[in-house]
Every structure is written in structure tokens, then in C-alpha cells.
């Protein structure tokens, strides 16, 4: 890590750590009787640790001039590790909370491990920890390759990566202490939110400057999506998290948005967190790693345009489908529903564009589990967006809302799409960045694939069943026009499915562990067996001067 930075850059890092530690101290001291004080102290200690690491390595040789002018891959390597670590953490917690719904005493009567506190640790762990790190990591990789330019800066990539992980850490440790704003997918408290803004703006500037240095005249589709992901998430995050802390020495804050308006802002955010975090960012991955691995051209450039702008425009209207039949005025629901239906077109266009890209390469699926990960991901993307648009129809939502059907839909997207495309991308990226011929073991990739696929299918079939049963039991009337079941009847009917879901989730987790081991072994593999670089990276000529066409 340190070896990839020049002496001056190492000193800049120390300076940043110093400033951050001071700010954290400024929080830790007045907030000492409050959880915010714990967080302040935690950050001070982390900064001290990082500074110690750097100070011990001030004399490590600086990178060579060739290294300085080439692609900057060191943060990518660390990012891969962080991605897999969060995957295992987040999915482990997922299996745990799934098991808690079947065997509620698995909280062991500890506050920090009760369902309500662990569940956001799961969602944050997988969406932000696993998904976010995967997005940052692959964006560093893709933007350099498709721009034929190294990252615009060598300190800020680290700042963004570690700063983002610090945010995730503040979030997850906060939940354990009972800190949350209760806004789904935006639970962290105000100071963590502010920190994320700083990190994100840095990310935006880094990405934009790298694009500006590109040597290709046109910006590649994958980068459109990464840009949309970065820009829109910033807007969503800031608006949804506007809040007034009770004092500056307290972690607790109150959102500025009241009642019904808060509901709309929250689900405008929540739905578009899905759109721009879990969809746009991962489409960016798909647009790079899938054609790369299949070695096929993208099916249609014009279809890419249609789907990109369709997704960017339509998604932002669809959030109110989370509030059908509620106290939100009916007119907003109409808009949410109609735009969700129109949204299906660009969604399927993206999935179709990916699948049509496979023309002439379908035979590769037989032996290449990595490619299979990505193709199956595209199928699940098509499936979950169809399901989403269907569930956005008010009459359907009257059945599905509040039930496990939503959870099934979420995981069709999260496991089938988000996680599978990520694993496929990582299996393409890892050998390329570490300059290995291939992954350590193709058999392990194959095993991972089948564990992931069977886990996903068990999970979503269990939840579809339980969701539909639950929804129907709630609304079934007897022939005397009286409700047929009490709530507890429906709860009792859920237990078998909760157990099945735990099993499916466990298989999926197992797959992620297998994948991590495989990646570890690939990295560890003796460099003697290295392939000539460039199996996946075509030779390139790097020229530090920005492209004149800009």
C-alpha cells in the first residue's frame, strides 16, 4: 500500500489523518457520555493506527517512474479484499437474522444482536459494504481501462476507499449501540452522513478528473452508469438525510421532513438507492466485464442510449410505489405506478442488450462459470425488474406490500443480480489486476456458481410462497364476509418458509466463502506461474497528457 505512494504522497496522507483525528477528537471530547463519543474515539484510534502504519514505512522505496505513469491498481487490490470481507460479514448477518425469524431466541438476549439492530447491519453490510466496495473498486478499474488514463490522483483513491469503509463501520457499530435515523438504507446518524458527503464529493472529483484525462474521444457506456451512480446518490443522500442534531455533542438527530413528506422523501431516496446504487452501478460493471469476458461487441449502442436515459429519467418518479394505498395522496401513487411500468422498457432493454451481446459466444457458457455468473445475473436483472414493475401496479401491491414477497423481490435482485454480477466481475478482474493466467481454481468458481444459484432459488421461492400466502391470509374473507384468519395464524404459517430461507441463505454464504478462498489463493499463487500480462488487458500506450479532443 505505502509502497505505491511517493514520499510526498505519504506525507499528505499523514496530514489528512491528522486533520481527521483532530476533528474526531473534537467530537469525542464533548460527546464522551454519548455514543457519538465512542465513535469519535474509534476514529481517533483508527487514524492513529493508520498513521503508525505509514510512519513505519516512510523509508519504503518509492514507486518507479514506470509504475507512476501506469494504471494505478494498488487501491483496486485492497478494494477487492474489502469487498469480499464485507460480503462475508453482511451475508453472515443475513443468515443470522433469517435464522432469528425462525428461532427468535438466537438474539441471546443481547441488545446489540436483536433483530431490529442486526437487520440494518445486514442491509448496510451487503448494500454499502459489499456492493459499495465492489462499485468503487471496479470503477477504479474500468475508468482507467476505458479511458486509457491512470487515476487522476494517487491519494484520493485511498481517501475514498477507506473513507467509505469508515462510513460503513460507523453505521454498523452505531446500530449495535442503538443509533439509527430509522430511514431504511440511510440509517446512519448525521455526523456519519456528513462524512459520507465529503467522501463522495472527493470520489466525484476523482472520477470526473480521470474521465477528463481520457485518451478515448468518447466516454464508454460503463462510465455513464458510474457517473449517474455517483452523481445521483450524492443528491439523494443529501436531501434524505437533512436533519437537526439535538446538540452537537449528541448522536441523535431529527429529520427535517415531517410525516407524509418524510415518507415521500424517504422512498424517493429508497427506491433510487435501488436504482442508482444497486442497478446503475452494477450495470456499469456488466457493460465492461461481460463483453470483456465473452469477447463480443455490445449488441447495440443505440439500445444502450435508450436504456441509460430511460433508467435515469423514469426511476426518479417511481419511488411512490412504496407507498400505495397509504396516506400519501393518490395522485403521487398514480405517478409512481405509471412510471414504474414505463421503467420496464429501459430495464429490459439493458438486460436484453447484455444477453444479445452473447450472440456467438453462448457456447462459452458451458465451461466458463465466470461468464455464466454474469449471464445469469442479467437474467435475474430482467426477472427482478419485471417483478418490480408488476409489484408497482397498485392492485398487485395491495397483496405484496408488507409481506415477504417484497423480501423475495429484493433478494432476486440482490442475490441474483447484484451479487452474481459482482462475483462474475471479480473473477474477471482479479486475474487481470494481479496478472495471473486465471483464477487459482476453476472448479471452485464452478462450485461457487452452483452454491449461489441454488441458494438464490431456494431463497426466492421460499419468500414468494410465504409472501403470497401471508398476503392472501390477511385478506381472505369467509363466506360470511368476515376475515378468515387472525394475524397469528399467518405468522404460524410462515415458519417453514423462514427455515427454508435460512438454508438458502446459508448456501449462498458458503459460496461467498468459497469465492474468497479462491481469490486469496489466486493472489497468493507464486508469481512464477504468472501469465504474460495482458491476457485480459490489451496492450496500451499510456500518455499522461489529457486527450486533446476534450
Amino acid at each position, binding site marked *: 500500500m505505502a509502497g505505491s505512494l511517493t514520499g510526498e504522497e505519504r506525507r499528505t496522507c499523514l496530514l489528512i489523518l491528522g486533520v481527521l483525528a483532530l476533528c474526531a477528537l473534537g467530537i469525542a471530547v464533548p460527546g464522551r457520555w454519548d455514543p457519538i463519543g465512542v465513535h469519535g474515539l474509534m476514529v481517533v484510534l483508527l487514524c492513529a493506527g493508520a498513521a503508525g502504519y505509514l510512519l513505519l514505512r516512510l523509508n519504503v522505496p518509492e514507486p518507479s517512474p514506470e509504475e507512476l505513469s501506469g494504471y494505478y491498481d494498488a487501491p483496486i487490490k485492497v478494494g477487492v479484499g474489502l469487498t469480499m470481507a464485507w460480503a462475508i460479514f453482511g451475508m453472515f448477518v443475513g443468515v443470522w437474522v433469517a435464522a432469528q425469524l425462525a428461532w427468535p431466541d438466537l438474539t441471546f438476549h443481547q441488545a446489540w444482536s436483536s433483530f431490529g439492530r442486526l437487520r440494518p447491519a445486514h442491509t448496510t453490510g451487503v448494500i454499502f459494504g459489499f456492493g459499495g466496495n465492489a462499485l468503487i473498486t471496479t470503477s477504479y478499474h474500468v475508468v482507467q481501462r476505458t479511458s486509457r488514463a491512470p487515476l487522476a490522483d494517487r491519494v484520493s483513491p485511498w481517501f475514498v476507499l477507506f473513507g467509505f469503509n469508515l462510513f460503513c463501520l460507523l453505521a454498523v457499530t452505531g446500530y449495535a449501540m442503538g443509533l439509527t435515523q430509522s430511514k431504511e438504507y440511510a440509517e446512519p446518524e448525521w455526523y456519519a452522513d456528513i462524512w459520507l458527503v465529503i467522501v463522495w464529493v472527493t470520489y466525484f472529483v476523482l472520477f470526473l478528473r480521470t474521465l477528463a484525462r481520457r485518451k478515448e474521444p468518447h466516454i464508454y457506456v460503463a462510465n455513464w452508469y458510474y457517473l449517474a451512480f455517483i452523481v445521483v446518490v450524492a443528491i439523494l443522500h443529501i436531501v434524505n438525510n437533512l436533519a437537526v442534531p439535538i446538540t452537537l455533542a449528541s448522536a441523535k438527530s431529527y429529520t427535517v421532513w415531517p410525516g407524509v413528506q418524510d415518507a415521500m422523501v424517504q422512498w424517493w431516496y429508497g427506491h433510487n438507492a435501488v436504482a442508482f446504487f444497486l442497478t446503475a452501478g452494477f450495470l456499469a460493471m456488466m457493460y465492461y466485464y461481460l463483453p470483456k469476458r465473452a469477447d*463480443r461487441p455490445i449488441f447495440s449502442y443505440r*439500445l444502450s442510449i*435508450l436504456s441509460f436515459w430511460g433508467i435515469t429519467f423514469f426511476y426518479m418518479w417511481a419511488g411512490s410505489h412504496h407507498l400505495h394505498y397509504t396516506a400519501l395522496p393518490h*395522485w403521487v401513487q398514480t405517478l409512481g405506478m405509471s412510471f414504474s411500468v414505463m421503467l420496464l*422498457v429501459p430495464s429490459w432493454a439493458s438486460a436484453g442488450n447484455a444477453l444479445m451481446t452473447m450472440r456467438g459466444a453462448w457456447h462459452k457458457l458451458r465451461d466458463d462459470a465466470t461468464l455464466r455468473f454474469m449471464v445469469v445475473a442479467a437474467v435475474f436483472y430482467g426477472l427482478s425488474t419485471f417483478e418490480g414493475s408488476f409489484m408497482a401496479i397498485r392492485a398487485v401491491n395491495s397483496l405484496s406490500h408488507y409481506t415477504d414477497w417484497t423480501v423475495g423481490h429484493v433478494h432476486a435482485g440482490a442475490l441474483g443480480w447484484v451479487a452474481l454480477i459482482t462475483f462474475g466481475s471479480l473473477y474477471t478482474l482479479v486475474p487481470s489486476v494481479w496478472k495471473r493466467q486465471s483464477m487459482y481454481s476453476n472448479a471452485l468458481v464452478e462450485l461457487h456458481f452452483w452454491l449461489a444459484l441454488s441458494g438464490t432459488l431456494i431463497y426466492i421461492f421460499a419468500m414468494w410462497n410465504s409472501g403470497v400466502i401471508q398476503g392472501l391470509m390477511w385478506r381472505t374473507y369467509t363466506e*360470511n364476509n368476515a376475515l378468515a384468519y*387472525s394475524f*397469528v395464524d399467518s405468522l404460524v404459517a410462515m415458519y417453514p418458509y423462514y427455515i427454508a430461507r435460512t438454508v438458502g441463505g446459508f448456501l449462498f454464504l458458503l459460496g461467498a466463502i468459497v469465492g474468497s478462498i479462491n481469490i486469496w489463493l489466486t493472489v497468493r499463487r507464486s508469481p512464477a506461474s504468472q501469465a504474460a500480462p495482458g491476457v485480459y488487458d490489451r496492450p496500451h500506450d499510456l500518455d499522461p497528457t489529457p486527450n486533446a479532443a476534450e
Partner: protein
Amino acid sequence: MSKTEVDPATGEQTTGHEWNGIKELDNPVPRGVLIFVVVTHVFAILWWFLMPAFPLGWTYTRGLLGIDQRATVEQAISANQAERASWTSAIETSSFDQIQADESLMAVVKDTGPQLFGDNCGACHGFDASGRSNYPDLTDGDWLWGDGSAEAVAETMRVGINTSHPESRFAQMPAFGRDGMLASADVRTVARYVYSLSHPEFSTEENLESIAQGESLFAENCSGCHGAAALGDAETGTPNLTDAYWLYGGELDQIIESVHGGRAGHMPTWDERLTPVERKVLALYVHSLGGTTP
């Protein structure tokens, strides 16, 4: 600057750009997609005309159908009520005896009772109404209030026990020990007496003396409510202490706890939460669980 090529696998043109080896084909948007665009847009636009849809500053377009979710659900509820009227009006106007004599009405009671009981009462009395510690069993035929007739049950439900309802039933067992009305030795003594009432085997030679002591303590302190023979009073909700049915437990320790700390169970009032018909159905349902035949 950019050279378009032909993709050998499909014979289609590329756009001529390349990013680290990735190219794009210059295929047009497939016709199917365009049709799909048109279909979904036509649907959406139609929907916007028919339904409340777009905001206009201080108001919004109401839609040609004049539909609003609140009016819709009110209609659905009224329609449901109208359909239910086939039996609700009969239940409303008939006496309990009449309903019990009417098989078809009792069939309705057995059909709708379990859900109402499950959503409202089961959390306390158990979903099979068999009660648990602190919450009376409604199937055992032992009643605190009244004779277990459907009327009595319905009245208990309407006003509740120890609630803020103006007509609430009150049943408070004083805290003799905690409030210092009896010394703690006396609390134990009277409890031993009470225990002996339902456990004849407890009256052994060695216990007889203290039981006699307890009996006189009971006569002084308790008989006013529980009656001289400790048989309780269903008019005031005072439990019978001689039988096998216990609300708070009939073990010696539990009895001592009742006498020491007092008791005042809270049964909510359902006057506002449930309609008279629902309460009638529930009362008949509870009654039908066999609680009248101990």
C-alpha cells in the same frame, strides 16, 4: 478517426469505437422495444387522464373517473357491511338466547369468532382461550364475574375490568403485606390457611394450629370480600379460593405473593374498539368454548 468494421460472427457493423478491446455494434433499437415503448406510454398517458395524476401548484388533476382511494375504500367497506347485514342485523336485534337457539346464526359465530378472538383476545387469554398465569382461562367454567352466560361475558368485554371506562368493573385485591396491613408472618399464616382450602392433604397434625390461626386472620381481613367460606363473589369479581382454578397460581408461594403485593388484573374495555355485534359474536364464541360446564 474511427473506422467502422464488420463483426465476423454476426456480419453486423460496429460503431468504430473501441475501449480496451470492447467494441459496440451499430444495430438499431429493435422494433419490439419500440413497440414496447409505445404500449407502456399509451397505458401511462391513458392512466393519467383517468386517475388523479399531476400536481398543479395548489391542487392536482382529479382524473376523468373521479376516483380517490379514500372514497373507494369507504365504498368497499359499506358494500361489505351491506352484505354482512344478512346476519349482523339478526345478531344485533336478537337476544343471546334467540341466537343460541338459531343454528345458522351460531354457525356464523363459530365462523367469525376465531379470527376476532385471535386478533383481539388471544394475546392475553391464549389463542385457544385457555388462559395463562395472570390471565383467566375462559374455557374452564370458573368465572370471576357473573355466571359465564354470554350476557355476562359481553358486559365484561364492554366495560372491561379495572379500566378507565366510566362503568368499568373493579376488582382489586389489596396489598396486605406491602402496604403494611398485615405483618409478613401473618401474610404467610393466612396464605397457609387459604392453601389448605384447596389442598386438604395440607391439613396435617402439625399444620392444624397455624391453619386455625390463619382462619381467624382470614375472617378478620378477607371474608368481607371473599366471603366467610372463601367462596368468592361473582358480583364483585372476587375469586373463589377453595377450588382448583387460580388466576395467579395456587401454590403457596404464589398465594403469599397475591396477599403480599395485592392483585388488580386489567382487562381492557372493547366498547370503542369492537362494535356491539362483534362483542356479541365474541361473547357467544367464548361461551361456546364450553366454559359453562365445569
